[in-house]
């Protein structure tokens, strides 16, 4: 019983969402607002049970790990947002959570720059590798901001643009299938689970 009702509700909401394709209408507005409310309502208990209790409450109050009172307070500082006078205090927790960026400096240098460089240094022993090489270099130069794209240099960078465009085209074409699968999934739900046309 609960399930059937569930399916009916789900189907109804699905249709509300699809109705947006026709035009913005009360049904969509309703679904949209409902969605926003419900999804946020989902996160509040979720965060409470899966983040606040295990990481903040239990260690501090049950395991008596009193040092954690400090981050606890830092966390509360966020709420100074609400006072127009002391809102600057909320920068402290923000700053703390920003600390991580330090890691970004060497890590992105390592993971995205150096590793990519190595993969580019493969011996040019077949046409594809050569093409990839040229492509990558030209794209890199396309992102070189200190020189206007004119003359030979401009020509070369435009090769880069070509490569990028092919790449974009490719990944566009590639994603289509995955997206259609989603639609198929929804329609199977409507026709199968709900109306039972397809078994």
């Amino acid at each position, binding site marked *: 019983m609960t399930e059937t009702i569930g399916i009916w*509700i789900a189907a109804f909401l699905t249709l509300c969402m699809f109705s947006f394709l026709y035009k913005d209408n009360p049904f969509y507005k309703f679904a949209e*607002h409902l969605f926003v409310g419900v999804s946020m309502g989902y996160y509040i208990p979720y965060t409470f049970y899966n983040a606040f209790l295990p990481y903040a409450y239990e260690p501090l109050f049950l395991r008596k790990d009193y040092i954690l009172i400090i981050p606890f307070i830092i966390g509360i500082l966020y709420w100074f947002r609400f006072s127009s006078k002391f809102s600057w205090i909320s920068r402290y927790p923000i700053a703390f959570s920003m600390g991580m960026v330090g890691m970004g400096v060497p890590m*992105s240098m390592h993971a995205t720059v150096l590793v990519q460089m190595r993969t580019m*240094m493969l*011996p040019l022993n077949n046409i594809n590798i050569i093409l990839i090489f040229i492509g990558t270099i030209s794209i*890199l130069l396309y*992102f070189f901001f200190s020189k*206007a794209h004119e003359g030979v240099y401009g020509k070369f960078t435009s090769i880069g643009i070509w490569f990028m465009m092919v790449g974009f085209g490719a*990944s*566009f074409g590639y994603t289509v299938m995955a997206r259609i699968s989603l639609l198929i999934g929804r329609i199977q739900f409507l026709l199968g689970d709900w109306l039972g046309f397809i078994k």
Partner: protein
Amino acid sequence: MKGATEVKICIKFSILLLTFTLLLAGTAFAKMQPNNEPVEGLRVEDVPHDDGGGLILSWKPLAKEKRIIEYRIYRGHTPDSLFYIGKIPVDAKTGVAADTMKYVDQGWTFFVDATSPAKLRHEKGQKKGSKGAEVLYRAVPRDIKVYGPLMDEYRILSVIPNNEYLYKSKMKIFTEVDTLEDATVDTTTEFMAGMKLEQVKYILTKLTTGKTYYYAIQALNMNRSVSPLSEIVSGKTTDDPPEKLGNFYAVALRDLEQMQFEWTLPVFTSDQQQFNIYLYDEYGDRHLIFTRQDAYPYTPQTNAIVPYDSIAANFEAFNPANMEWYTFNIGEMDRQDQETLALDEPIPAEITTSSILPEPPIHFTVKDEPNDKGDQLQVFFGYPFYGLSKLTYNNDFTKLTVNYFINDNSMYEVDRLILTINGTTKTEYVLDYKVAFRVDWDYLKPMEIIGTFICKKKGQEPLPEDYHITHTFIFNTKQEMVLIDSPPQQQMEEMKKYYYQIYKTNRLSDVYRYAKELSYFEREYIDKISYEENQYRGRPKFSLEDKRLYYSTYLSIVNYKDKYPFYTQALYLEQLRHQDNELRDEITKLKGELEKATDDEERTEIQRNIDFYTDYLEDKPEVVQKANQLKSNKARMKMLYKAHCTNARSFKYYIRKTDGKGHFIDTPVYTTPDGTQYLFPIQNWFNTNEIITLVAVLIFAGLVYFMIKAARKGKRLYIRPIAGIQEIDNAIGRATEMGRPILFVPGLSGISDVATLAGLAILSRVAKKAAEYDTRILVPVRDFIVLPIAQEIVKEAHYEAGRPDTYDKNSVFFITQAQFAFVSGVNGIMIREKTATNFYMGMFWAESLLMTETGSMTGAIQIAGTDAVNQLPFFITTCDYTLIGEELYAASAYLSKQPLILGTLKAQDYMKLLIVITVIIGTILSSVHLTFFMNWFPVK
């Protein structure tokens, strides 16, 4: 007027819909399925061959229609109080197809810790008055009044963080006085470490042997309504004799004058106490020739070497010449001394010489792993190996693609692999696990791939000239697939026959434990020696007054002169003194007896005890002596604990190469050139693999520094025009003309994502412009932490533009966390607020197109910028302008002409140039097979 009616309608409408859905939901839950059948056929049986600590439950699952989502299991030592111990989740839709369900209550399960519920609570759901309602309890609470007594009914294992146990415990002395028959009073005092429950990490339980436990089950359905309690069934744990050992082999080596035995372990080993190997002589009499006591920590043993003379020691009449008369068998004994023989009929030994044994592995070495946090040792041996993972051919069998893999070690690190298939030779300079051969292959005949290696020169002795590994493969016409190493080719046969067992022992124990088994093609094993965090102690005493648990107090220090393995020390100085005094008293007492004693045997006996005690008193490890001089308890423990850690974490190793049939050979225990056997993992303070990263970062930082300096000096820094960025102003202008708001989405990711920060940087410029033009800007946000930041930015922008009055703090608002709910919200805004210009700057995922298409429906000008490569295509096609990848980061610099930021952008540019040059050089080098340069760069 019209507006008003509209409003009315939409209110009515939405209220209506809401109530409608709520009603549905309500009824959905009002209509609970009856879950009125108890679980039937619950049976509790003893687990065979176990250590008497296991029971196995089985029951009939309820019908699929019942829509059960979990079966909850309750256990107790009396039928009138059962505690929740665990559940088996089930998928309601599919149900359980099998006709019985099982739950094995064996091994250590969670009992209680500081986060357990505060009070003892009855499990709810059972009908009032029904049996279940009275006897069912939720998990064991952290109330010592409840769990304290319960601990006596189970085996207990407590896990205690070191520093709590060693430094923060509260000493307490328990004295027991009991009068013996001869009216002499015997007082035993025990020192114990008191801990509060929250100091203990957690406590585990296991069933005790020969005790009856009671179980019951209730099933939860989709609406979490519980079934009536199943009948409460009891089961008694019994300790049965251990399981038979498998395939027992006996080998007698004439020339080495020793016997080698090998066997395989049964499934359940945790109850093994010792292995006994028996020899049956010509009269069928049984002689115990080898026993191996269980070692702590328990270490399964699968083979043993027994020298002839040690056999002779147990069996005088032993004569190697008559070896063929003797037969052998092995027994496994558990802690209750119940023994099971492996074979019904003892077997004769395979009599042979050491020539049958394999070659021992060469270059067996143990080294500290570099660049670790001090918790790894590398154990390695032998020459490199390459294997074939896959062979694929083209249809006319002229092109063969070989996928290979390489196993090497840090001594012989493979630099190049040279493969030869009938005549054609290919050298792999870059080991990418893939080579293509042009071979004319008569696919009906088997083929051979011969591989040789060139290793990195590191001062080790070079590989033997003739060292090579050959694989054969044939094409199986029936299956149209290539079979590797078939027909079995002699060399591979040989290799595949043997595997390697690594044995190790630390400075506390006297027995080698079995660390790892390596297959025939493995050449290296990284032994993880993790930092010790906890102490493990058995059942504590507990006192209800001060709500503490009291644990026995000792810390194992060292395996002292092999005389005292696991030589332990008391936790408290007071305790230490007390112990010593007791010993002294004992000695004096014994000395007295020695006077009186007349019988020689008795005297020697007493003398031995005296010597033993005195020796124990005087001869102590020096670290212990040093520590015991210290006055403060804490300092003493620190010193002892340090010793404990060093000893517990330094190991010595040897490798046994075996075929599992008694033909095995050991390497000698590895000894470093400077003669030490024990290796201790050292923690490193610089990760040498990251040198290149460090260099790169430094160069970059340097560039930034100089560029900024230049910029400060007012040096004009040229930046080429970037279409998307220039358009930003016009886009804002357009919105102003049309008198419609601007929408700015700073990505869907949090601030941990650099793209978001770049987006926010752009926001600050856009907001400023908007403020100047006095145009409304709407900033929907998905991340809580981005919210305050964005608000600050917009507010600040208004101040800078000198229009603080126009700042509306609702212009930056949070929609929701859920990705698609957020998008639906944004779409709604676009349509209803009729935004004229939409900015998307930051990190986006699949939702990108959802927003941009809606945007183009409303005919807004759209400018996007992201570094999410997979989303760029959608932006490029649907937006008017798109900042691709790095342009997003450049944008903020471009908009704010601040020298600092411009400088960094410039530095970025020159870095790019540097990269291009480096890459070109590297490529040229590698193309002429000089791979050293590219090998400086990290693979991943």
